[in-house]
């Protein structure tokens, strides 16, 4: 009996250990605010052929064990990638603008379904120069999306590849490949007879493989997060100490600038906004912590009673705003 127990234990050790493999190459600065188009992903089989798999199993219809699958593996992976890219400095094009345009570029079939073979064969330069106005394109491939059941053990496995290609040079700026899996059942130390039977079934819950994909993709995209964003929670946000402007009685005189001053944390990016009228008028740091900006009104411009708000941004993109309490300004 002891020998059988030992045999089971050693057989299951591979399922217990963290079996994920993550590889990446990075050939650009993650701080560079590239405008990126994330194209629809493809799902391929072991022969490299594109397949259509909605990722669902029969067990997804049993609500006590699993949840109904709303998104295919490719749709879900793309959605997770977009959410994770929010934590980087990249400027991401709205996917819906891409998806609406692809059929008009002969990259979809008559029924509206994307022609993935064609989409993946078009070079990044064509996308960015012809219709998306971007600096790079992200291609994503789902190579594995498996939920397997072995009676006393179930296993979820995902394998994903992401490639960021420069539109200018067609070079691979970033590439990441990851394979990760997670088991449920005998390998995870069941606490009773019921859990021996139930846990493998619960391991087939579609939410678990979605969680696995989310964690895998988050880890894949970690190199793209700028160094500062990884520490943003530990440092204080930027501070503004004093602000003022020089519009006497709130009147801006045509031909003369409105000058706005701010005393704040040094080495930040400062700008000011005049109500809803004009945004992001740049301010320059003339000496440490002293910022000055000018709004030069054009002859055609006019506005009434707009308040001035200073914005200070740090390298982690955290923003502090302060309204100038000298009162609103008008340009007549």
């Amino acid at each position: 009996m002891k020998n059988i127990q030992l045999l089971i234990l050693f057989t299951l050790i591979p399922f217990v250990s963290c079996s994920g493999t993550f590889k990446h190459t990075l050939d650009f600065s993650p701080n560079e605010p590239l405008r990126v188009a994330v194209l629809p992903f493809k799902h391929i089989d072991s022969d490299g052929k594109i397949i259509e798999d909605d990722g669902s199993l029969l067990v997804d219809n049993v609500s006590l064990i699993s949840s109904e699958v709303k998104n295919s593996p490719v749709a879900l992976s793309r959605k997770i990638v977009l959410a994770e890219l929010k934590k980087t400095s990249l400027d991401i094009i709205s996917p819906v603008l891409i998806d609406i345009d692809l059929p008009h570029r002969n990259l979809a079939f008559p029924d509206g379904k994307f022609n993935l073979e064609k989409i993946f064969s078009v070079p990044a330069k064509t996308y960015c120069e012809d219709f998306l106005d971007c600096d790079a394109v992200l291609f994503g491939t789902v190579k594995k999306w498996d939920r397997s059941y072995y009676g006393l053990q179930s296993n979820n496995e995902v394998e994903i590849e992401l490639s960021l290609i420069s539109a200018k040079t067609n070079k691979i700026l970033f590439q990441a490949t990851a394979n990760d899996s997670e088991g449920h059942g005998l390998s995870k130390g069941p606490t009773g007879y019921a859990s021996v039977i139930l846990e493998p079934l619960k391991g087939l819950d579609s939410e678990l493989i979605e969680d696995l994909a989310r964690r895998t993709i988050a880890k894949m995209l970690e190199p793209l997060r700028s160094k500062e964003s990884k520490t943003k929670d530990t440092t204080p946000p930027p501070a503004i100490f004093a602000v003022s402007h020089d519009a006497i009685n709130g009147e801006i005189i045509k031909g003369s600038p409105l000058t706005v001053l701010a005393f704040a944390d040094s080495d930040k990016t400062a700008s000011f906004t005049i109500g809803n009228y004009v945004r992001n008028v740049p301010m320059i740091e003339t000496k440490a912590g002293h910022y000055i900006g000018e709004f030069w009104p054009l002859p055609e411009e006019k506005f009434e009673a707009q308040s001035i708000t200073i914005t200070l941004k740090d390298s982690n993109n955290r923003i502090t705003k302060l309204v100038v309490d000298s009162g609103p300004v008008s340009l007549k």
Partner: protein
Amino acid sequence: MSRNNLSKNNLFKKISFFINFTLLCSILCSCGATINKAPELDKKTIQYLALIPPSSLEGVSRERAEYINELIRYELESKGYIVLSNDIVSNFCSDSSCSNRKNLKELYNIDEIAMLNLESTSSNDFLLGYYNSISGKFSLEKLNGEVLYSASNTYRDSGGLILQSGQVIQAIINQSKNGDKDSMDKVNYKFITSLLKELPNVKKGIANTNNNKLFITDLKITPYNKTVTKICIAGNPSQSAWLVNEKNNTAELKEINSGQYCGAYRLEGTWSLTNKLKVELRSPFGDLTHLEVNKK
């Protein structure tokens, strides 16, 4: 009955008791989002909408609130909705109630607004277990306030040795993962997904943006006075235009005539014309086109 048969019977009784108990708990605990849909929602052809950022909530940092807002945006976009740019919404709506929302129709042809009202959030880690939760309500409304879709939910995530019976090793693994600073991302993601899961997808083929292709047809750089430079571009009317420097900081060019956007700036430091500058014309929905001012 032999001793073996008796022990087998007892074993089966125990197994069936545990299975029934677990199933009962699952039934009682399987609470999802409470969703209300107006009947006309399925017939309506909504594609463009404005997303009002969630109102601030104690205990939720601005960055976390922005992240949650972006999750809603991506979820809406994955269903085919085209969402008004954040910049425009934050400039237009002074608070989460957006009292001047009726002007959205006139300016951006928006008929519906979406918003999330965060009610509470908590994150508790007590070494042998953890419990995270977030609750709130999402609604999609017409500009007159009539609700087309609303969903409220409290999403809970718990685990660890105390709260996750059934698998000892998995409980320990989950406990260590909860210590990761991004652990709330999963909770936020699941929360948003649960709120929007019954929102219908946009019907394909409703509209396209090809008719609104953006163009910059002209760029003029002229001295405004001895120290200030005037920059003007010509392009599609009723968009937003920007001067952008190498650090991706932006300065607005105002539309002074239909399709003509200008600004006068002292171009120094990172804004100097000897640096890499470009002008951008952006639609309210994220489309853009650009022109380099000075190729370095």
